[in-house]
């Protein structure tokens, strides 16, 4: 962890146009909940469609993807990463700083609206459960996408394939693949923390907790290891 790097990363993230893409999503999440409540929709239905369908399945992975690949991927993309790599800072610490910024930005950007939406639908406990689950999810997703942005040249597309094809399509059809789907860990955590009976997933709490830790640690370790022997190249293909 290096405060200067974290500071530069945060500034790079907030100072760009791409950040504007993150702003509407939390607002839409809360706005849609308000519309749903105005129509007197049953709370269970709202929780299913808004909190799970829109929040956990769409907003959380997409926010984490944009932020997680933005903290390091964009620097690699435009070549400014050499300025950081040329400094005598252990590569592991660079990764830790980037991960801390990415995870906290994604966590704030998703947990706050999820808390608001959850609290509006089913009380503070539901909101707090979803907010905490989203924090855990944001950490795991950030580590995953940070690793992708060091391991490949096209992190956003690979991340999209993971989010859309693996989590969106395959894990809904083949129940076994849910054990390696961050989305289902988040659903499990949310169900556990909020004590609600509305959400069901086949992943057990123990598996979800262990796998979240594994994804986070493995992602960070891989990213640090890969950054140690990182070769700087121009944009190819």
């Amino acid at each position, binding site marked *: 962890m290096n405060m200067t790097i974290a500071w530069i990363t945060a500034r790079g993230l907030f100072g760009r146009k791409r950040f504007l*893409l993150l702003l509407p999503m939390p607002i839409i999440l809360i706005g849609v909940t308000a519309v749903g409540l105005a129509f007197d929709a049953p709370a269970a239905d709202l929780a299913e469609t808004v909190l799970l369908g829109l929040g956990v399945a769409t907003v959380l992975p997409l926010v984490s993807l944009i932020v997680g690949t933005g903290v390091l991927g964009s620097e690699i993309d435009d070549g400014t990463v050499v300025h950081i790599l040329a400094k005598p800072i252990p590569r592991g610490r660079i990764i830790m700083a980037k991960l801390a910024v990415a995870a906290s930005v994604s966590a704030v950007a998703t947990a706050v609206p999820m808390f608001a939406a959850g609290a509006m639908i089913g009380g503070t406990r539901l909101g707090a459960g979803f907010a905490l689950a989203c924090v855990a999810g944001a950490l795991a997703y950030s580590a995953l996408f940070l690793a992708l942005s060091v391991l490949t040249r096209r992190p956003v*597309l690979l991340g999209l394939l993971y989010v*859309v094809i693996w989590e969106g399509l395959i894990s809904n059809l083949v129940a076994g693949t849910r054990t390696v789907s961050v989305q289902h860990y988040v659903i499990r955590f949310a169900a556990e923390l909020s004590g609600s009976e509305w959400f069901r997933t086949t992943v057990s709490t123990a598996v979800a907790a262990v796998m979240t830790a594994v994804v986070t640690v493995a992602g960070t370790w891989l990213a640090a290891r890969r950054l140690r022997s990182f070769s700087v190249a121009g944009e190819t293909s």
Partner: protein
Amino acid sequence: MSEQSVIHDIGYQRYSGVRLSRGYAARSLFEHGLRVAFGLGRSAKAKIFPWIVIGLVTLLAVVIVAVKAQTGEMMLSYQAFPSAVSTVAMVFLAVVAPELVSRDLRNQTLPLYFSRPVGRADYALAKLSALAVAVFLLLAGPQTLVFLGSAFTAPDTSGVAAEARGLLGGWVVSAAYALIFSSLSVLIASVASRRAFAAGAIVVVFMVSSGVAGLLIALGGEGPMSRIAPLFSPFLLPEGLRSWLYGTSIDVGAYGPLYGLATLLLVAGCTGLLVLRYRKVSL
């Protein structure tokens, strides 16, 4: 100075061949765009993502043919095929649309194009039509594969004719998907000069709008809202159109013509904005 100065003819010549028109330039741009969409003529790295998508879509078609050959049952009708693969098609758009327009913005190659006879609107329309044709091929190719598979297993010629009619309907639906998806995503990609950012923006717009529309449909129940809400999702708008044309998809009640109009307006609006965008683009 020598006594006799001579001017040597060193062979400079004027170009006396045929001057190919602006139309030729636009056609070349379109052709190049179509090749880029599938990574043809580019490195293996550029082929990975489009061909993963094509592989997935073709796999589904092969499964349909196999099931049909074994049981005689059509698992997924021709018209339902595009909606079944629409999320995969969205990934294709997120891969290809930035490839077509964002690279030119980022590498600042636009001045090179615009110093030629090709106009700004030509450029925009050539890119858009290249993407639309690519998406149409992505959807219609597997449909045709299913048709070939079913035609060979059909018992008689009337069966083949029925399959052909189904295929034509499927192509119409595919064309609607291609137009709606590609006009929207080229417009989004044309404001982002980074490919990664453009890809993210396309997926965000598609998925968030569909989530919101899905909720509105659920809230509307049997009322008019659940029949109008699909208009606001790029995934459901072509399904509404299909429902109006063939009556085989989501329930749109009496609002069918509205879907036709909305499709027209969306495509025309996105194309217009795209042309405007390239009129104002900073080079």
